[in-house]
């Protein structure tokens, strides 16, 4: 539908001015700067820089710590995405079904959305603390000598559990609203045709939820890549040492701690490309989702 519009020579530019100036200064300029400096090598004090072409990228890919970080990021993202989606889906399907206490459950399952990732992580490292944490104590009682912060695997385990805990509410909200969007008539027809609720779920509900699921898949990958920064930083207490980190955390480490501007920018550019691909996917899915409705 085409909107009736006002015609005014200057007014629309005036309206756009605040947003455009912020976007240009704080978005396009830094983004261009990141791309530019990925082709330069800057000395640690920032006095001079030389054009090195793709050297920063070549350097980055050949370094074993970058490859290890990339591998960990993939494992981390896959586990966080799968578990937070699966748990949220189970809870949403169940919450959609119960009659009594549905709104109480809904509130109890979504309020954690409001907790900041680093705050969640602060509580998490207390729960997993080698000395005082009940989870660590429980593992130790089972014979697993759980050591947060000193053992790579144990630290990664805590990061993953905290990241899942923080992400379940978002997925729950979207799945539940997706479920409530399925017309009652479809559900009733399915109930008449098919007695087994399990089969009904996989043949009717699940396919109808697929658009929401795909959309959430992208959201969750983006979350595990970027929004977990605060969780990782707090779990590592700012000192990664021997512990695994994700790619975004490494950009921060190399850029702000290591003063490796070129290397950090090259990593940023790789992440930009990754996000670009994810976003293109996401837009296509949003279009499709709108189509369904």
């Amino acid at each position: 539908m085409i909107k009736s519009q006002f015609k005014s020579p200057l007014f629309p530019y005036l309206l756009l001015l605040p947003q455009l100036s912020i976007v240009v200064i704080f978005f396009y300029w830094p983004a261009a700067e990141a791309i530019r400096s990925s082709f330069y090598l800057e000395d640690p004090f920032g006095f001079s820089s030389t054009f090195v072409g793709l050297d920063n990228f070549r350097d980055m890919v050949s370094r074993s710590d970058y490859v290890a970080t990339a591998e960990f990021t993939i494992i981390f993202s896959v586990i966080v995405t799968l578990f937070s989606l699966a748990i949220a889906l189970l809870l949403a399907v169940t919450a959609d079904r119960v009659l009594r206490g549905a709104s109480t459950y809904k509130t109890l399952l979504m309020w954690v959305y409001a907790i900041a990732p680093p705050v969640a992580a602060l509580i998490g490292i207390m729960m997993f603390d080698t000395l005082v944490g009940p989870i660590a104590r429980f593992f130790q009682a089972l014979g697993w000598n759980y050591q947060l912060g000193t053992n790579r695997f144990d630290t990664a385990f805590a990061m993953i559990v905290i990241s899942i805990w923080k992400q379940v509410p978002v997925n729950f909200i979207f799945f539940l609203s997706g479920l409530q969007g399925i017309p009652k008539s479809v559900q009733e027809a399915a109930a008449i045709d098919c007695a087994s609720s399990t089969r009904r779920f996989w043949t009717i509900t699940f396919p109808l939820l697929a658009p929401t699921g795909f959309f959430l898949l992208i959201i969750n990958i983006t979350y595990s890549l970027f929004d977990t920064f605060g969780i990782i930083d707090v779990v590592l207490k700012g000192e990664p040492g021997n512990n695994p980190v994700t790619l975004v955390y490494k950009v921060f480490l190399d850029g702000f701690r290591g003063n490796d501007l070129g290397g950090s920018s090259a990593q940023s550019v790789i992440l930009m490309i990754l996000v670009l691909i994810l976003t293109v996917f996401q837009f296509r899915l949003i279009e499709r989702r709108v189509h369904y409705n």
Partner: protein
Amino acid sequence: MSSSDLQAPTGTTITAAGAAAVSKKPFAWRQIVDHVVLIAGSLFMLIPVLMAFMTSSHSDITVHTNGLQMTFGGHLAENYHEAMLVPGGFTKTVDGMRMLMNSFILGIGFSVGKIIISMLAAYAIVYFQFRFATLAFWAIFTTLLLPLEVRILPSYEIVQGMGLVNTYTGLIVPLIASATGTFFFRQFFKSVPNELIEAARIDGAGPVKFFIDILVPLSKTMIAAIFIIMFVFGWNQYLWPTIMTTDESFFTLVRGIKQILNVFIGSQIPEYGQAMALAIVAMVPPVLVVVIFQSWFVKGLVESDK
């Protein structure tokens, strides 16, 4: 919780078939399992926070010797008093109240700024015919492509070059440089019936009058929903405040988490109670907003897609 829980609904039918006594009421068992799943899920979300709160009411020695607590202790007032009113940190100049105030400044400043700026931009894009409309549209919406995290270092250098480090402007304005709000309002404005603008024009209302007298009142619910989302988003910012504020008097509560961590390093017995008290204070405002305005919040979240 694990993925094996996914099997629960499947298992239900087997259990129901197995117990002869239940066969009269085949749905009872399924309902019980449903509630068990939901209660387990609720506890999974609730227990860590409950434990943090309970621990914040105990003395550090109790926590240090007995671990985190699940009961209410007698040191609540003491811990919160120390966390909120006794200056701490490296410089011993910043207390919890100051950080709480900064969090409110960031949360409210960010959401209000974002709403005003993005409403104006969306208004121009949807309701005006002008030469560079398409260009402006794409210039704004491309920002949805790249999160702050991937351009963090140059962003910092630019803001530093403008002398905005350790200012509220430097803290808030760069965060507004994304199009989420504009996207949301554009969608909403497009759904506003065309008759309204035509009627307004016949009555001789200009673009300013139409915006203030018709569009803004119509958008009330949308503004409320987006305010809640943006307030929580702004309040919970961590990376940007971490690099932008080095002066402790500009720390927000979430930024201050890094300082709280220092109580774990060095001192003989870490100040657990105080740390948990600050964590609780840092989560109460956004949690209250989300719980009280739940329906607006869910609407805003689902419709704006973050």
